């Protein structure tokens, strides 16, 4: 196999963490016979040098100013140059705003194929294989690539960035750009009012099993004590019990707090898709067989009405 091209990205002038992870993934594939690791980044040579420091065999700085817009259209020319320069037959991107658009755009441009949001990659029988989650996390799919270049976007934190790298690779620049048919006229950061659900270190969520919209007051009180935010399942939002903006799940917000307390939520894939990345899950549910109980670290099998007020009191005592 002829090599791997990593499409790196920067955040505030530094190589983004996901890009280090992509180099980690590429080096693993390299060890399985996929060839050298070339990394491309929009920016100057200093930024490209940083990629060498993170383990890339070669790094290319794409200096065309048009790339700053971050549109897939603008990137196509630079990536094509890098592919022909490196001869790569695998392209890896992060599952980021850029990767989500550029990954498929590249695959369709080359008439090859793309797998999105991959959690594992391996070379088997001379072909790239990717493992990804499907059906809201209920299933895992392994897909194999035939066409070249094989394009895959990688889920954050699926691979470790290489450590203790000696960093001796060559850096080059390319100026290729592309006319973007999509013109960026403005960007804004997400506004924050109070603790954003997505940023909260603790999330307390309620589901249909609460049986009563007023129960959310209890959950809000618990969340406030833990300096967290309150969420709800789609079922609870559809019943009008809680604002849709606070919905956690496939059609709502994706959260990955340090502590996720699921109250009277069974754990259908619709909901799991939005919170499966939580570091520690606590389930409070009457049903010991509920999926949410199975995936949690701690669970109380009990009617939440009796547990939550007591839990609030106990946490007060510990504070």
């Amino acid at each position: 196999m002829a090599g791997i091209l990593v499409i790196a990205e920067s955040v505030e002038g530094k190589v983004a963490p996901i890009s280090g992870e992509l180099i980690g993934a590429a080096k693993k594939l390299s060890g399985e016979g996929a060839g050298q690791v070339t990394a491309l980044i929009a920016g100057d040579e200093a930024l490209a040098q940083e990629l060498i420091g993170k383990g890339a065999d070669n790094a290319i700085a794409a200096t065309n100013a048009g790339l700053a817009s971050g549109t897939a259209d603008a990137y196509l020319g630079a990536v094509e140059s890098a592919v022909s320069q490196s001869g790569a037959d695998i392209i890896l991107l992060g599952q980021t705003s850029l990767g989500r658009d550029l990954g498929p755009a590249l695959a369709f441009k080359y008439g090859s194929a793309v797998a999105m949001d991959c959690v594992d990659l391996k070379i088997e029988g001379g072909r790239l294989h990717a493992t990804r989650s499907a059906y809201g996390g209920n299933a895992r799919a392994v897909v194999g690539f035939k066409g070249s270049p094989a394009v895959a976007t990688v889920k954050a934190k699926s691979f470790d960035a290489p450590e203790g790298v000696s960093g001796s690779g060559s850096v080059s620049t390319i100026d290729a750009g592309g006319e973007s048919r999509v013109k960026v006229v403005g960007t804004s950061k997400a506004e924050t009012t109070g603790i954003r659900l997505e940023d909260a270190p603790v999330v307390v969520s309620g589901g249909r099993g609460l049986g009563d919209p007023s129960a959310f007051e209890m959950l809000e009180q618990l969340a406030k004590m833990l300096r967290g935010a309150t969420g709800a399942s789609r079922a609870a939002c559809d019943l009008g019990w809680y604002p849709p903006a606070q919905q956690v799940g496939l059609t709502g917000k994706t959260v990955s707090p340090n502590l996720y307390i699921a109250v009277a939520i069974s754990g259908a894939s619709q909901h799991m898709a939005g919170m499966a990345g939580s570091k520690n899950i606590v389930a409070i549910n009457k049903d010991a067989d509920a999926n949410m109980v199975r995936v949690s670290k701690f669970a109380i099998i009990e009617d939440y009405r009796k547990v939550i007020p007591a839990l609030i009191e106990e946490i007060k005592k510990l504070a």
Partner: protein
Amino acid sequence: MLPCAGFAPPTHGHSPDGRCGRSGCAQEAVSRVNIIVCVKQIPDPETPAASFRVDEAAKKVIPAQGIAPVVNPYDPQATEAALRLNEADGGGHVTVLSLGPESARDAIKHALAMGADEGVLITGAEFDGIDNFQTARALAAAIQKVGEPDLILMGRAAADWDMGVVPTGVASILGIPVVTLAKAIEKSGNALKVERVLDDGFQTVEVSTPAVVSISNEFGEPRYPQLRQIMLAAKKTVQIWSATDLGIAEQMGAANRDLTLEALYVPKVESNVEIIEGDTPEEKARNLALKLRAAKLI
């Protein structure tokens, strides 16, 4: 009666056949705005995890008993976007496409009940096991057969495979631009202004039609079909097109697949749950608080 300003596209309500109700309007049968919405039927994502089964040999999901498939939860938002654009534009035509089994007619009917005008079901055994490139190829062929759309709208992804690559694929095959993850769209003539969702905020982009736009869940609540509309929808036509009708039967073959499904399985969740014991709910709550404190989680 108000005089018609006479410029295209109409800024007031020309009827769906393109005729203007206002006096002095020169735009008889002006070309109306055509929007195509693509929808997909998927297994219900609210299916309890315990009922989710996979046939590992066939690499297929075994439909959960008694749980009917549903329209992909992102797709009604695409239909909603089409209807809102047409309402703002004063008329227009919405065609709903779905590629899937015969039962996918229900996903089309849902969009028709929301207010879309007509439907097309792309179905047949040739489509079994197609990859995302072939899906995009089939939809692009159907879009070309429908006519010359101004706008093609889709949900951000199908919640079963959750790839979100078909919008880009269709745009690429048709040679038109794509904007993904829209939370708001404004259309003025053939100029589109789209607010899109980024990882850390929002971005506003401009693009000209025809274009493909995928709609994100941040777009807002889709309308709920009312009984009268559901009854009206029953009278709307749903055409059925096969791969042969679209002239793409050969392209759907297994030999043309660049992405092959090698395995599909339910991951084994190592359940390490610690059930917090106690004689009373209060004691359980106390024990949980102590555990959380010991684990430095509170």
